[in-house]
Each structure stands twice: as C-alpha cells, then as structure tokens.
C-alpha cells in the first residue's frame, strides 16, 4: 500500500492511499464532527458536518480521499460557521428529551453539539419540532421519528451489511423519513429483525426495546443454530440484560440474527423448570433432588442393554454429550444412544464416511465469500442459518454465481441466481442430471479424479443409461436448465455446495448426499479454500452430538462400535470397543444399538438387512436429555404411544416440554448461559461457552446431573470430574480429532477439528492433501429412486417442511415474547393454482390430512411454491403427526420427512 503524506491542522500525517480525510484525521486523534459516516459502511456525504477546508475549498471529508501534499484545515472560521448552522438546524428539528432518551451519553448528536458548542438560547428561538408518534408496534425495536437525523446509516446498514434492503428514504422535503415499502411497520416488510440498524443508529431514533446497560459482559456462543456466532451476554446482578455480537468473532464479525440478538429472554422465562418433578397419581409434583435422584437410581438402574434407550441433547455441551454417551455404555450397558442428528444429518454423516471419510463442512464459514459458485440445495440459510445466509449474500454481491435448487422460492431468490425448481424428493434425478452433463461435456477435473479418488469408472458406468430427459421428467426441471447449472457449477471454481434437511430427510437421503459429494469430487472441489461441501447443521451443537458419539454407530470421535463395521474400507477401524473398554475401565455392550426412529418404531424399514426391519419393541425405559421427541420425530404419534407405554421415563430439560409431560421423573437442567462447556459449530470450530448467571431454582448443569446419577449407580470413580475442563481433558485423550483441544488453548485460538495435539493448529480446510480417514475419495454407483410414498388421488399434494426465521424449533423461542408477532404464526403455504381449485384464500382455516393423521392450520396462498406442493413450518401445530416413520435410510436411518402426501380440506 502506498502511503500519502499530508498535513491536517499543521500536523504532518501519513495515510494509506485511498483512505478518506476523515479516516486519516480520526486515526491521528484529530476529531472532525461526523454523523452519517460509519466505519463499516460506504460514505454517503449526507450530513455535511464533516466539512474541512483544503486550499480554500470546502470538502466533505468523509467522502474525499487523501492526496499527496494535501493541506487540510478542520476548523477555519468558514468551516465552523457552516458547521454550527448545520448542527443547529439539525438539533432544532430534533426532539430534545435527552434525559429520558435511551441513547443519552452515547449519542453522536450530543457528542457533536458539545464539540461545536451549540447556543441554547438560539436553539430556543428556533421552531420546536412537531412531535411525531413513537412507533412501538415492533416487538424488539422502537422507532422515534422525531429523533431521526436522516443520516441514512440504517438504510445503508440494511443494504450493505444485512442485504435485506427493507428500508429507504421515503417521501421528500420536510416530510422525508425512513420507511419500508408502502410505509408499513417494519414487521410487515422484508425486515429480518436483525437489529443491525438499531445498533448503528447514531441517535435515539432506533432503540432496542427493554434493554438495560449491563455491568459486565460474558463472552459466549449463541445457543440457537449451528452457525456458532460469537456473542457477549450483558449481565446486571444475576440477570442477562443485553446481547451484543462479538465483533472479533470470524464467523459473525459482530452480526447476529433475530434469534441471537433478541431470543435470549427464554433464559429468564417464568416457565423454566426450577425443581425436580416426580409423577404421583398421574400428576407431576415438585420434589427434592434427593428424592428424584434416588427414584431414578432405583428405577432406571433396573434396566440394562436392549431394555433401555438414552437420548443425548444436541443443545448441550460436548462435555455433557460425551458423558451421556459414556453413561449409556458404561452404566446402562447399552448402545441405544441416540440424538436428533438421526432425524437430520445422520444421512450426511454416515453417508459420507465411505465417500470422503468425513462429513464436516470443508471450510470455515468465513471462507464462504471466497467461493466463486454457491450451489444451495435443500436448505434455506437466510431463515435457518441467518449469518451463513448473509455470507452467501455478500459472496453473490461480489460476483459469485448462485444456483438454487428448491421447490420453494426462498429469500435468497431475491439475488441474481439460477433456479432449479424441482419436485420434492427428486433431488437425486436432478443431481445425476448435473453429473451426467459434467461427464458429457468433459467438465471434469481429470487430474483430481486420477490422483485423489477411486472407482470413478463404476460411478460413470452407473450413469450410462441415465439421460437428461429422464432427469427432466422426474424432477420437473427443464433439461436445458440442468445443463446450464452443471456448466456454471463445474466451471466456476472454487465451488461450495450447501445443503440441509431438504437433501437428507428422505429414506434414500444418503444417496442424495453421495451425489453432491460426487459432484464436488468430479470437479476437484475439495481441499481448497472456499471449496467443497457445507452440510449446514441445525442445532448449536448437533455437530458435537455426532462428534461425541451420541449414536449407536460409534463411540466418541467416530470410532466404530461392534455391528457397525458397515464399511469394508475401514477395516482397521472395525471396532474400537477394546480401546474404549481400556479407556473407560469396564466392559462395554456388544449388541448394536438403535437410533432415534428405530427406538420408537422398531418396525421401520430400510436400515440394516430385512432381519432388522420388523423388530419387536424391547425398550422399557428411556433417559431423555434436552430433546422434545414427541414433537420432533417423524410419526410422532408412535413416539407418544411408546413413551406412555414405557415402564419408566426420565426427562432432563430446561422446560416442561410435551415429552417431559410424559415422564415419570423430570430433572431441571441449566441453560447455555448458566454453565461452562464447549459447542462445536457447523464448520467444526470448537468454542467455549461460559457461565453468566446462576441457574434458576434448583436447576443443575446436565453434566453434574449425569455424574450424580452415575455415582449413585455405582460408577462414581468413572464420573468424578471437578469441572467441564476436566471432561474436555478426557475427551482429548480418547478422541484423536479433539486431541489438541483444551480450555487453555480455546481462550486464545480458533480451533477446528481435526486438531491432533498440542502442537497441531487445527484444520481450517478439510481434505487438503488427502481425504480424512479414507485417504482417497471414493465414488459409488448411483441410480435415482423415488420416494417410498407418493401422492395419489386421495392425497394429491406433497407436504414438505422447514423453518421460519424468528423461531428456532419451538421450546426456547416460544418463550420469547415478541417472536410470535414476527411472523412466527403457523400456516400452510399453497400454490395459487391449487388454492383456486380448492377455493381457498389466505387466512382460511384448513385441515391438512395425511395417511397418518390430520391437523388444523391456516392457508397462505402464494406464488413462491410449486403447484402440487405445500409447505408447513415445523415450529407449531405438531407437523410430525402427519409424517411417517415407516421408511428410513439404510445408512443414516433418517426418516422420509420431506415427502409426505397430504390433502387439504377447508375446515
């Protein structure tokens, strides 16, 4: 960078070429009043307070670049006169109620007035502003137009940082104000309620509602989605009063979505569980820890092996999940240890083991912007992983190509993109169409295929008979569009593929995943910055749940269990039973365990050989940590029946969920803000969470409850930990991927697994010279298959499901006042043609009926969804009453949630 010499107020300064006069002055401690300039935004030159004089000329310093030899004066008589006038005019139109304003002492206008020295008497003679009404209709943001100085920072923030473009200057002259399309309230516009504009507004015109200034801040990680944004909890006394994005965190760089910024109030909800509960005569009654633990020890302690099922929570810490997995195997001698990953990315994780050896997102979130092509399929990042959605927006704005395959028009479709509107469940045909084109048009990376992969010819042969015409017939996407997508994907490198439940929640989901990984291998998109695959993890720590072995298939660290030697190439990893028997100092169960769906529907077909299909129900007792199975498992009716019929059920959670209501004993747990530990983000980054406040009532951290129970069941010596740091030491000693992780290092380092030892710096980009674990990537033959249940005359529509921006699942955000108002309302989205045929209009009550059940909702008629498809958010209305748990994936055991034939009736 070239340096430029100039003088500002007689001071010789040096500045980088291209910086503005304002930046150069501020960097040298010379203050120039400025209101509309913001370090993170492009200059706009609106307020004109930053005037300076350069060789007799008045210039706007925030938008004028420095030049060699420039002589700048920031306070000539002329400048001061104009500036004072501008400030006075601004103040005159400004509602002057500083003392009661939330921005008092933190306000840029006050700062400027003090600097300029505004004459109160003259101000008094100016006309007082007409008081406009304060708009407090938004649940999280108050807008006071009388205080707005029209600096446009909010408009630019919404455009440049958030990319939502919900607001702009509207009207003109004296009536100019900031508003949305149609001058509607924010919550009725494209606003994503991120609050980014609020934190940047220099005055009190935009303020967060109900925030107080904290007396200390605790650095931690967001508890909602797997993006893993860094934040500070602001604490006053023993209460959280604010949340602020961590500007130093490389994933979110200070930004937060609506959940991260405003969703924390669930922590202090009145509905938190505060004491243990024991069911007496059908009613859950308060009890002491002593009573509850004794009861659990006596009752749960009776069941062993195949008689008991354990659920780890993807919302708890790695340390706690590790202990859950250890507790199941060591204390209860069972491999029936499951978690919600079996409903989501198990098809990705187990599916990719034999292909690329690991299903980790290949690159850090911050590298998304280095990708030249983003292929977004079966996911809706803007709503489900909002900060990743922002990174995608930024990449596209700086020129990356975007391909979107989705039956719905997702918010990312507002960007320039190539859309592949496929019918639900036909992903494989579409992806094979893309692969076929890459083959035919020789867009392959031959060198990569030869050097780094195996069995390409087998895959190639499996495509021989498949044609683009078939791809079009099955998926409904025109062949030419599929070809275009293939060319775009294969020729814009590095390319990154994003997916989520739309790909995995099928009984053939692992094949969809294989196809995606194959596309990346064919084009050499592995092992490079910004390239590869990004299977977006849902929960804050569902990555950790898989890493820590909360699954029947492996012990912590993907070290396989007996009966799961499914992959011949893992010969030497066949079973790690002996290793863990040595590490944990006891014998471990031999019988293969069952994953989530199988535990409640042992008759589910697909996984294992046919001998595994029609199993009898052997489980009599469950220990369920932080998972609302009754709402989240497909075919939820069956889950409820099983839990009702069970001999003993313990649920450990922070709220009395629908699942907890069915328990015999409920144990109150601490939330993320009340304990120490680590979460692993979707990009494999292991991050510290820290205790900020005390748990409510008698609630304990999950790790402490597990240790206490283990102790009472006779395994105290194997569960004797002082604190979570000690648990992490043990994890590092048995899990090579986490071998170099310690709390000490996490204080100062950004570590992504694999991190093999103290000297190892972690792995930002996966598979650089060789594929993790398998050395070489392996192609598998692929043929498309149709979903097991298809629409017919009785059930002519296909229901597919997904998330909405404000909600995270349900139990936490449902306790957040205000989320409902932000479009958290339940609906079923239906195409306008289908709606017309059924004579439905938006808002009509409808009954959604599947082969398994029915529920009520309200119609939302739209153009944004394909005809023949309806979309139902997962948050409310027990959508899984309709879905089926009968068919599961042979590898990942994930059920066929995303293709559910239904009919719609006017209710």
């Amino acid at each position: 960078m070239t340096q430029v010499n100039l003088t500002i107020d007689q001071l010789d300064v040096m500045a980088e070429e291209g910086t503005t006069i304002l930046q150069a002055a501020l960097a040298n401690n010379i203050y120039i009043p400025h209101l509309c300039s913001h370090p993170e935004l492009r200059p706009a030159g609106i307020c004109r307070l930053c005037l300076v004089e350069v060789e007799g000329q008045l210039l706007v310093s925030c938008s004028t670049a420095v030049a060699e030899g420039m002589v700048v004066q920031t306070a000539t008589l002329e400048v001061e006169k104009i500036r004072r006038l501008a400030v006075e005019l601004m103040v005159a139109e400004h509602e002057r109620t500083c003392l009661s304003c939330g921005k008092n002492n933190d306000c840029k206008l006050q700062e400027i007035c003090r600097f300029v020295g505004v004459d109160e008497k003259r101000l008094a003679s100016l006309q007082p502003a007409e008081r406009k009404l304060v708009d407090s209709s938004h649940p999280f943001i108050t807008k006071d137009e009388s205080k707005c100085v029209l600096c446009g920072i909010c408009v630019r923030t919404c455009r440049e940082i958030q990319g939502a473009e919900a607001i702009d200057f509207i009207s003109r002259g004296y009536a100019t104000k900031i508003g949305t399309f149609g001058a509607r309230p924010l919550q009725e516009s494209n606003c994503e309620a991120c609050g980014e504009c609020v934190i940047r507004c220099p005055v009190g015109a935009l303020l967060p509602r109900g925030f107080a200034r904290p007396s200390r801040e605790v650095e931690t990680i967001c508890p909602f989605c797997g993006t893993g944004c860094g934040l500070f909890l602001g604490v006053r006394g023993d209460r959280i009063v604010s949340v602020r994005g961590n500007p130093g965190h490389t994933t979110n760089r200070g930004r937060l979505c609506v959940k991260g910024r405003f969703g924390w109030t669930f922590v202090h909800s009145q509905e938190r569980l505060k004491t243990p509960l024991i069911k007496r005569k059908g009613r859950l009654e308060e009890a002491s820890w002593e009573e509850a633990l004794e009861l659990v020890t006596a009752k749960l302690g009776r069941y062993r092996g195949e008689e008991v099922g354990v659920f780890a929570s993807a919302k708890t810490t790695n340390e706690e999940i590790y202990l859950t997995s250890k507790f199941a195997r060591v204390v209860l001698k069972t491999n029936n240890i499951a978690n919600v990953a079996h409903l989501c990315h198990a098809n990705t994780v187990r599916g990719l083991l034999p292909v690329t050896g690991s299903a980790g997102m290949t690159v850090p979130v911050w590298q998304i912007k280095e990708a030249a092509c983003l292929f977004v399929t079966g996911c809706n990042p803007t709503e489900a992983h909002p900060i990743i959605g922002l990174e995608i927006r930024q990449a596209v704005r700086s020129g990356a190509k975007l391909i979107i395959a989705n039956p719905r028009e997702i918010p990312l479709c507002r960007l320039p993109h190539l859309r592949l509107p496929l019918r639900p469940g036909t992903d494989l045909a579409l992806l094979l169409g893309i692969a076929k084109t890459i083959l035919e048009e020789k867009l392959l990376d031959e060198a990569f295929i030869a050097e780094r992969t195996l069995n390409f010819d087998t895959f190639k042969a499996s495509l021989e008979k498949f044609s683009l015409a078939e791809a079009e017939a099955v998926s409904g996407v025109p062949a030419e569009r599929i070809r275009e997508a293939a060319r775009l994907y294969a020729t814009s490198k590095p390319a990154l593929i994003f997916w989520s439940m739309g790909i995995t929640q099928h009984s053939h989901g692992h094949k969809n995943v294989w196809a995606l990984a194959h596309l990346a291998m064919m084009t050499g998109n592995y092992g490079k910055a910004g390239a590869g695959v990004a299977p977006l993890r849902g929960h804050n720590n569902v990555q950790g749940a898989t890493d820590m072995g909360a699954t029947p298939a492996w012990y912590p660290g993907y070290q396989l269990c007996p009966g799961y030697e499914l992959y011949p190439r893992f010969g030497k990893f066949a079973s790690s039973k002996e290793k863990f028997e040595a590490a944990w100092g006891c014998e471990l169960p031999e019988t293969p365990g069952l994953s989530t769906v199988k535990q409640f529907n042992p008759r589910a077909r697909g996984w294992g050989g046919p001998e595994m299909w029609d199993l009898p129900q052997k489980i009599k007792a469950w220990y369920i940590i932080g998972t609302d199975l009754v709402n989240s498992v497909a075919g939820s009716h069956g889950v409820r029946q099983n839990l009702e019929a069970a001999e003993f059920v313990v649920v450990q959670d922070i709220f009395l969920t629908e699942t907890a209501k069915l328990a015999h004993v409920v144990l109150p747990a601490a939330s993320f803000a009340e304990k120490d530990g680590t979460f692993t983000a979707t990009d494999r980054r292991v991050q510290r969470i820290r205790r900020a406040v005390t748990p409510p009532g008698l609630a304990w951290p999950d790790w402490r409850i597990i240790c206490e129970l283990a102790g009472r069941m006779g395994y105290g010596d194997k569960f004797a930990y002082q604190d979570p740091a000690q648990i992490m030491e043990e994890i590092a000693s048995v899990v090579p991927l986490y071998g170099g992780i310690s709390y000490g290092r996490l204080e100062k380092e950004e570590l992504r697994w694999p991190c093999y030892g103290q000297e190892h710096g972690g792995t930002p980009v996966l598979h650089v010279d060789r594929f993790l674990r398998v050395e070489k990537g392996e192609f598998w033959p692929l043929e498309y298959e149709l979903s097991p249940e298809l629409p017919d005359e009785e059930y002519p529509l296909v229901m597919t499901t997904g998330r909405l921006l404000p909600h995270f699942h349900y139990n936490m955000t449902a306790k957040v006042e205000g989320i409902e108002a932000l479009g958290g309302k339940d609906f079923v989205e239906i195409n306008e043609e289908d709606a017309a045929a059924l004579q439905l209009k938006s808002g009509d009550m409808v009954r959604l009926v599947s082969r398994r059940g029915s529920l009520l909702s309200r119609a939302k008629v739209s153009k944004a969804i394909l005809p023949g498809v309806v979309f139902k958010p997962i948050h409310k209305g027990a959508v899984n009453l309709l879905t089926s748990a009968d068919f599961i994936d042979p590898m990942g055991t994930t059920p066929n949630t995303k293709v559910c034939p239904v009919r719609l009736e006017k209710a």
Partner: protein
Amino acid sequence: MDERVKNILASFRGHRSEIIPILQAVQHEFGYLPEQEMKEIAKFLRVPESQVYGVATFYAQFYFTPRGKHEIKVCLGTACHVRGANKILDALERELGICCGETTSDALFSLEKVACVGSCALAPVVMIDDNVYGRLETKKVKEVLGKYA
C-alpha cells in the same frame, strides 16, 4: 402478473434508469401505483421494493391510492396558509371522512394538498378538477362539494 403490467414492462429493457418512466406508465394505466405492481417493477428492475417505493414517494406526481373521480387540491402556499388554509383542509377531511392523500370509499373525491396555485389574491384557495374556489370559508365547504355529488 396483471397483463397490463406485463405489457408495460415488455417495452422496457429492465435497466434501473427506467424506473421513472415505468412508474409513470403504470400510473397512467391504473390511475395510481398499486402495491402489487410496484413489487413487480422492483422484481423487473432487480432493485429492492423499498427503493422503488422511496423513489415513487419522492415525486409528487405519483399516487398510492386509487384516484377519485374528482381531484380536490387544497392550496397550502404562504398566502393561503396565512388565511387559514389548514382550517379548510380540516373541514374537507371531516366532510369527506378521509385524510389528505386519500380517496373516498365511493371513489368520488381524492384529497391532496399543493403549494401556491397562483391565485393568491383569492386565498384561501381550493381547486376541484380545473375549477378554482377562492375566498373559501369552512361553512361553504359542504355546498361546494355538493356540486359534484
């Protein structure tokens, strides 16, 4: 999409600079700028909806509600202002049951305010379509409106 908008958009290239002519064409066709049509324009030009609205509201020529059969323009220029134009506006609003900028539900009248219409000598002045009503008093408002019923 409404056929009429489709036809209008078909005659443009989709460049941002065409925003004003497109808005004008749409208003000419519909008599005002319906929201759905503005959204289509935003999509067509690949600009945010909020920006289309921002631009449209910047110009006095655009309306956001259907126009009435008769257009009432209340002058709020200096001379009229001094002579109580606000009271006349209030009276009109009360009489018609709408706010300035709106249209009556029977679509008979739209009410707008304007700056000096050049008849200061007659202040306060109200124009209905092309007719000028000067030296207006609040109690005469009803009578004037009656002529258009």
